[in-house]
């Protein structure tokens, strides 16, 4: 983009400059009365000419549990990157509720609006105890000076205990997160998302590397979250997807190939062709 274009963009009269936008939390402005909590339209992302997302259009309803499947390189993780502000799309728009344009916000701002993300590879603060991991994730004023002087209140401690209960790590709360098993780390990470009181949870491959039992528990956990939160799950494990999914979206080469319930999708000829090569 040339400098002149940039200037023009800056001076457009139909926009408000970022610095003049009000600082909002999601209770104030998140407007889901018309249905979707998340709305992606024509989102395109390319890396060196390779289109990771190609005019992707997708919406997620408030309180829904959505599963997204697709082969490697279908654009699942990139989509999450776009929603959470890590990657800026070349084109398209992403709206959170009716009014919030996510493309204008940074990752912490998006997170503060109640969009939580679990990474593909479980990422927790390994040098901290489980307790501190959860404490740090708690929804609160996260400005530097307040953080410096902040002390945990009893109420907050209760909230942590609550989440510990949900993720089943009551016994482990004092241990260093680095010492947890793989599955426990996954749960801890989900717990960290829950500490933020999110409206929308983006969960990337939650059961990768889990035992059958762990998988089952995770499925329970996620289904119990739906309703209160909107949950988007990206997963390869078809059994797992079947066990939790109501609506499934299939991504292929950066755009939606098919969408519907599990059976519909599995019987879709295009999906079969992509997955089975026949």
């Amino acid at each position, binding site marked *: 983009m040339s400098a002149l274009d940039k200037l023009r963009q800056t001076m457009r009269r139909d926009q408000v400059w970022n610095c003049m936008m009000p600082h909002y939390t999601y209770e104030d402005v998140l407007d889901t009365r018309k249905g979707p909590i998340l709305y992606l339209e024509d989102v395109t992302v390319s890396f060196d000419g390779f289109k990771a997302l190609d005019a992707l259009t997708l919406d997620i309803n408030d309180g829904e549990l959505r599963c997204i499947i697709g082969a490697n390189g279908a654009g699942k993780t990139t989509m999450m990157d776009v929603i959470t502000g*890590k990657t800026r799309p070349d084109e398209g728009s992403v709206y959170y509720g009716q009014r919030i344009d996510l493309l204008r916000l940074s990752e*912490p701002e998006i997170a503060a609006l109640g969009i939580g993300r679990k990474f593909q590879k479980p990422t927790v603060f390994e040098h901290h105890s489980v307790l501190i991991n959860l404490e740090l994730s708690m929804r609160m004023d996260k400005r*530097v000076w307040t953080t*410096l002087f902040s*002390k945990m209140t009893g109420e907050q401690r209760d909230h942590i205990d609550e989440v510990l209960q949900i993720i089943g790590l009551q016994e482990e709360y004092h241990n260093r997160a680095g010492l947890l098993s793989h599955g426990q780390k996954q749960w801890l990470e989900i717990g960290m998302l829950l500490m933020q009181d999110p409206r929308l949870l983006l969960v990337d491959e939650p059961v990768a590397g889990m035992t059958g039992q762990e998988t089952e528990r995770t499925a329970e956990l996620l289904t119990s979250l739906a309703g209160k939160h909107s949950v988007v799950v990206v997963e390869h494990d078809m059994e797992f997807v079947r066990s939790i999914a109501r609506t499934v979206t299939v991504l292929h080469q950066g755009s939606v190939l098919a969408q519907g319930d599990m059976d519909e999708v599995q019987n879709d000829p295009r999906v079969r062709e992509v997955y089975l090569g026949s």
Partner: protein
Amino acid sequence: MVKLLQQYFQRDRGGNSMLGILLFISVMVPVLNLVVPESSVFHVSTYTVTLIGKYLTFALLALAVDLIWGYCGIMSLGHGAFFALGGYAMGMYLMRQIGDRGVYGNPELPDFMVFLNWSELPWYWSGFDMFWFAMLMVIVVPGLLAFVFGWLAFRSRVTGVYLSIITQALTYALMLAFFRNEMGFGGNNGLTDFKDILGYSLQSDFTRASLFAASAIILALAYLLSRYIINSKLGRVVVAIRDAEDRTRFIAYRVEYYKLWLFVVSAILAGMAGALYVPQVGIINPGEFSPLNSIELVIWVAIGGRGTLYGAVAGAVLVNFSKTWFTGILPEGWIFALGALFVVVTIYLPRGLVGIMNRKQAAQT
């Protein structure tokens, strides 16, 4: 919770005893230097006082580096720049204190300006005749530079090696700039030939002992401050950033502000170290900006043990003490020893000397 606090206390037993030692020497060394007669075996010579005083300022500098490197994972190869800027601010005050006792007897201009035919004091020298202003600048100048630099770098997410290299570029550029005589900071010779501080002669043993005590006390205070920071929730966020920056960002922390805050605090500590260093060694010159110095001080921290505050302090004192010692006994070969030390510690002691002891401690309990 209580258990946690206890744990933190236990974990910092090294730090507590270090504070004890600091307090002890801040009283005893001046006493042994000033009160005990020179003939006594307990007399501490002025040479030793300034030597240990210098180590203490280096220790403060190492503490500053450890704060950002050990806890936040920001490896600054330009911390020498903040140290030097603090030193220059102090040096400018001391320079103005000379007054008309310079060799040319000019009451207004420092000697180097007189022989370069400067007719008046440059604007940025004004105010430095006042101690409070100079002290303010010791904090403001490094802090401001760190703020501007950090704001740009952290906002655009320059991390890891890239950050290290551009901090190196920063101090290198400053070194070249301060070498220029047109800058008005004395060029290669820097600032020297100081006479007194707050009206006390810098050459008197009393002033030296006081500066020594000030260094020890400020180091102790800085240690307490750093410990407060790292034990606060902010400290935990900072460690979280070090271990998983993206995760921290996705739980709604503005990582760049945290980094920036800590970077500025660290730069201010480094600046204070510089300000204490200059009156004790008697000279500040652009050599302090040299990128090699900054690398070396990162190595002090590595040797002591990063991520433990007293480790950084111990590393700085130990490396500098062994330098003093080796240059005496092995004038031609000490660089081999130093180089080998760096290699061996980095490879085999990733947690530094403190790491060995902790390991032993862990084995015992």
